[in-house]
């Protein structure tokens, strides 16, 4: 009963409901406008909402997250520019549909399927999280350490072409997280004897720099790109259309939840894997993939929205973010004095159920806003970049300043923004940096706890890993990620499967 009440908290306060609606609405646009990303929006928002109560702040962010993952599909369909990385796969079949004059139908199916995928993700989150957190209570410090490493490695290996660059980015993030006085021994780390470094580097400043400023600088290359307008007809899809694709959407939603729940991997990877899956299971598509196949829309869109619910599972139960946005949300919870992890689920179950309720509400709003207001939408998305870019930069500065009212944070933000700009250009992924910063403390604390409990003996430490089934599984997973990148593995895979499938 308490659970139901906690889920319904959103409805008891009109202000919260309004914030979820507002967040979802804004999220759709943020996701849709190329150059604005949800990661960017949420990281800038943290700095503005940190003086709020935790419920309103979370309501707004959850709405933006849910809306943003969906919003990317709109520009993918209408302009062939995925508004967000999770909509890359959507563009492959969505744009050809729009070219044939079926943009309305494509948007309609996408919206309903996103809602469906989102719903499945949230249901799985609600059902699985309590079990995972109960299970997580038996985790040893070394398991947390391994999980943190696994998360950083996963995002590093799956999100960019080069695992080496991904690992570098992750390690760099951990190092940034270590700057300042060590909380246990009070030793200075990477402070270079500068007083301003003693408190560490504000991770919000780093985030805003990497996702706001560097993105805006990147966009300067495409200032003059013009949008092409599409004709839009009937939007709400027929029931029979939905029914036809229901079995596929169930499969791809499961892919989405699982990929989303893996630490470090989010909607973009889920969408691409689901697209790949749809291609393999659909033997005789009515229209070939890549030329406007409905399956090619259904699969990525259910998967990326299902991944939202999935991404919250490790975040709420283990304190390990499921993707870059949840990494930032963990930061937001920290700021509000909450400590995500198994104890949060036990001490403050209401918080968890509130988030579930907010996600559900956001999902419904997404459906409503998704099926309406397309006309205004096309106008807003065509807002020239010559205005958007200066605004993003301005918001980034305001955001970085607002957290501590310190001009130093603005400089950190600019520094990391410029650095991030180069990282983008040379193919270093930025996701692992943020994950590294967020997980740095957890990694450090748990390593020290683990090694102290083994009396500083590395042999006993590894013995502990090998004798515990959980630690061993995690350890093997970490090793596998490395092995999967070596030439020997690739050769073996080619020999076994004939031809690499993906």
């Amino acid at each position: 009963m308490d659970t139901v009440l906690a889920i319904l908290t959103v409805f008891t306060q009109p202000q919260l409901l309004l914030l979820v609606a507002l967040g979802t609405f804004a999220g759709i646009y943020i996701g849709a406008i190329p150059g604005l990303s949800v990661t960017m929006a949420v990281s800038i928002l943290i700095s503005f909402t940190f003086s709020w109560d935790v419920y309103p702040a979370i309501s707004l962010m959850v709405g933006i997250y849910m809306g943003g993952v969906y919003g990317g599909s709109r520009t993918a369909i209408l302009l062939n520019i995925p508004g967000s990385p999770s909509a890359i796969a959507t563009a492959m079949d969505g744009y050809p549909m729009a070219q044939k004059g079926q943009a309305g139908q494509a948007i309609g199916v996408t919206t309903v399927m996103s809602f469906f995928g989102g719903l499945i993700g949230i249901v799985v989150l609600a059902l699985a999280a309590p079990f995972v957190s109960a299970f997580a209570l038996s985790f040893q410090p070394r398991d947390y350490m391994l999980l943190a490493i696994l998360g950083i490695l996963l995002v590093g290996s799956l999100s960019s072409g080069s695992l080496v660059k991904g690992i570098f980015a992750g390690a760099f993030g951990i190092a940034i997280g270590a700057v300042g006085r060590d909380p246990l021994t009070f030793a200075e780390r990477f402070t270079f004897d500068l007083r301003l470094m003693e408190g560490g580097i504000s991770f919000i400043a780093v985030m805003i720099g990497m996702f706001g400023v560097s993105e805006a600088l990147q966009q300067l290359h495409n200032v003059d790109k013009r949008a092409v307008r599409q004709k839009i007809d009937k939007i709400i899809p027929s029931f029979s259309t939905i029914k036809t694709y229901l079995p596929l959407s169930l499969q791809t939603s499961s892919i989405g939840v699982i990929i989303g729940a893996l630490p470090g991997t989010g909607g973009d990877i889920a969408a691409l894997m689901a697209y790949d899956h749809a291609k393999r299971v659909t033997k005789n598509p009515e229209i070939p993939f890549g030329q406007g196949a409905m399956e090619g829309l259904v699969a990525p869109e259910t998967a990326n929205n299902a991944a939202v619910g999935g991404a919250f599972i490790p975040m709420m139960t283990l304190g390990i973010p499921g993707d870059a946005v949840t990494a930032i949300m963990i930061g937001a919870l920290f700021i509000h004095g909450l400590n995500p992890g198994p104890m949060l689920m036990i001490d403050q179950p209401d918080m968890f159920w509130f988030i579930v309720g907010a996600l559900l509400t956001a999902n419904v709003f997404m459906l409503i806003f998704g099926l309406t207001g397309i006309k205004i939408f096309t106008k807003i998305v065509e807002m020239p970049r010559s205005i958007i870019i200066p605004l993003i930069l301005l918001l980034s500065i305001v955001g970085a300043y607002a957290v501590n009212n310190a001009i130093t944070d603005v400089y950190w933000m600019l520094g990391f923004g410029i650095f991030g700009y180069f990282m983008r250009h040379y193919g270093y992924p930025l996701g692992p940096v943020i994950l590294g910063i967020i997980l740095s403390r957890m990694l450090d604390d748990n390593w020290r706890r683990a090694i102290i409990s083994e009396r500083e003996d590395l042999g006993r430490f590894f013995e502990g890993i090998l004798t515990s089934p959980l630690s061993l599984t995690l350890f093997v997973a970490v090793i596998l990620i490395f092995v999967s990148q070596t030439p020997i593995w690739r050769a073996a895979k080619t020999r076994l499967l004939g031809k690499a499938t993906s």
Partner: protein
Amino acid sequence: MQPDVTGTTDHNSSTAHVQQTNHPLQRRPGELGFAIFLTLASVFLLYNAYGISGFRALSGAGSVPMATTLVMTITALIVTLRTARLGRIAGETLAKDILPVMVIAFIGLLIVFGLLLKPLGFVLTAALFLICAIKLLSRKGWVYTISIAFLSLVIIWVVFRVVFTVLLPAGILPEAEFIQFFRNLFAGGAS
């Protein structure tokens, strides 16, 4: 062009450059220099991390920093060696594709923004910044530029200063009176 299904695109990067092809077998201008810089910086950080607590204890304050900087050094070195073996992409130059004048100009604008924020106050600095930035990018008339800049500044200021109650440097403008005015307007609205 279909994006690669294994996801060669950057996780968080947007989107407009999703459509650019990645050149895994060629290096971009400045890429090698960047990799060498990262390697040297990593080595320096490793040395610095060693200075935290040395090899005294596995649980020392410096052990995780040492491990991470060691990983950074090794990976940066691998990247450098791999990059050095690649040939340069023909037709790309540092000045055109990596650091065009526009990007440098904007970095400059941002630094100036940071310098002026405290003494001049947020409203004036932001106004200057928006006018310069929009003028540079849109290359349209002054009326257009100034009216857009003014409009967006008003919206941003009302949303953040009044609704979100973010503290911004007031500088030389009598901001407090304005705010009281808006507070009265929004009385009973957002907390």
